[in-house]
């Protein structure tokens, strides 16, 4: 999956599907623009007229409340019209293919699709088949990527720790194997030049070739958290437990759950992050989640500003040259 599909002829963002292959300047542009959007929340009217008259469709093939809500709010704060369409797999059994669904929506003069799908590569597929003026934002595809979540995490880190990622040691804890969030975070941290990236997880939840991504692997939380500046905990999907990859929630918490006691080994100014929603008593206990080092709720509010930045940057040009579209 090349980065070219994501950029227009002038090198500007057209689709936002994955961080892989994007030039770092695009990431900086998103973070800088998000700074300005974060200020919009201090206005009485928390809205700017930037995307007035544009129509954005949240196309969700997989249930999600949090991500969909923040995308919806971001679009509304940009003054766009928003349509939420939740498609369960049953509509495909009615005989309508994904492309038929897409053509139908396009006929309603949609300008942007925000797509979440259980299949890896779904957003890329849609991006290759939309009309030239339509942008696609990936809101999570299978195990592949969740780039806006990673960017809001980077925005949070930059706000809390400052703009120099080179001096930061960042550890990601949890189910790296199945996590599109972790994958996108690792790419983002690389592109922003993070000093060290660690992953901490049981052997069963780490992809075999993960070291190729330039990360250091730890299997014990106590060792992995030593000297880290930022600790990102991933949500443990309960269904993995049934797949015999993990003994039990209780056992996971004992080994990888974050407590004040285990945190004593980390730097005193360590920042604790989590994409939400938290399983209290699984990834971390409440004392840590609600403690002074946790920025979990700030991540949520920054998520809106970052999504506003991504949406407006992808929509900034008018009709573009039709060079990435493939015949369908």
């Amino acid at each position, binding site marked *: 999956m090349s980065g070219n599909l994501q950029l227009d002829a002038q090198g500007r963002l057209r689709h936002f599907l994955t961080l892989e292959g994007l030039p770092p300047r695009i990431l900086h542009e998103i973070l800088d623009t998000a*700074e*300005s959007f*974060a200020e919009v929340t201090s*206005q*009485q009217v928390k809205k*700017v*007229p930037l995307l007035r008259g544009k129509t954005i469709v949240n196309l969700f093939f997989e249930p999600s409340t949090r991500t969909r809500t923040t995308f919806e709010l971001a679009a509304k704060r940009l003054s766009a019209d928003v349509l939420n369409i939740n498609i369960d797999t049953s509509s495909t059994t009615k005989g309508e293919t994904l492309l038929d669904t897409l053509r139908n929506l396009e006929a309603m003069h949609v300008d942007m699709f925000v797509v979440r799908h259980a299949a890896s590569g779904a957003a890329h597929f849609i991006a290759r088949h939309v009309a030239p003026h339509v942008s696609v934002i990936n809101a999570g595809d299978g195990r592949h990527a969740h780039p806006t979540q990673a960017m809001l995490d980077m925005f949070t880190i930059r706000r809390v720790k400052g703009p120099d990622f080179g001096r930061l040691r960042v550890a990601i804890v949890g189910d790296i194997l199945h996590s599109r969030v972790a994958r996108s975070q690792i790419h983002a941290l690389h592109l922003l030049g993070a000093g060290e990236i660690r992953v901490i997880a049981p052997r069963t939840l780490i992809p075999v070739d993960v070291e190729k991504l330039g990360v250091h692997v730890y299997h014990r939380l106590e060792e992995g958290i030593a000297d880290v500046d930022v600790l990102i905990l991933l949500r443990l999907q309960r269904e993995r437990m049934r797949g015999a990859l993990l003994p039990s929630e209780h056992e996971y918490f004992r080994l990888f759950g974050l407590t004040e006691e285990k945190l004593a080994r980390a730097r005193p100014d360590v920042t604790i992050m989590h994409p939400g929603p938290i399983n209290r008593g699984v990834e971390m206990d409440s004392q840590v989640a609600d403690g002074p080092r946790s920025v979990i709720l700030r991540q949520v509010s920054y998520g809106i500003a970052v999504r506003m930045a991504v949406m*407006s*940057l992808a929509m900034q040009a008018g009709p573009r040259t039709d060079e990435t579209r493939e015949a369908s």
Partner: protein
Amino acid sequence: MKDIEALYVPALLDDMAEALERQLQARGISRPAMVGIHTGGVWVAEALHRRLGLEEPLGTLDISFYRDDFTRIGMNPQVRPSKLPFNVDDRHLVLVDDVLQTGRTIRAAMNELFDYGRPASILLAVLVERSGRELPIEPQVAGLHLDLAPHQHVKLEGPEALRLEVREAR
């Protein structure tokens, strides 16, 4: 156009500060809040703010998100956060920019200000009022009035030692 470039900007700013003070007095405004438009407008506003000895910190606006040509030109790559360190509601505001030409920037700035609240009044002060208006917007205070051809551009250079430059397009 050399005569414009030879103009001493601080002297223009002194004149503006005086004219602004007279305007405020005539309107019975004792505690105005000042807002500069990025980038040149902020430099001019800083200078006026100092000359008027206003206690309240200066507000700054970046009107990128309110421009009317976003879909034609795209995002300003150097967009900065707008900061209004005071409540806009019922306040008398002095809006400051460097050059007034079409009036579109001021239109965008006023739209943005109204998203922060309902000001009691807005006074417009610009360093240069030049020809080329496309909207019914006029300044109450101007340091300089210029009649320029459409292909001539006047630009404020700064922030150290502010000076005006006139450029011929093509």
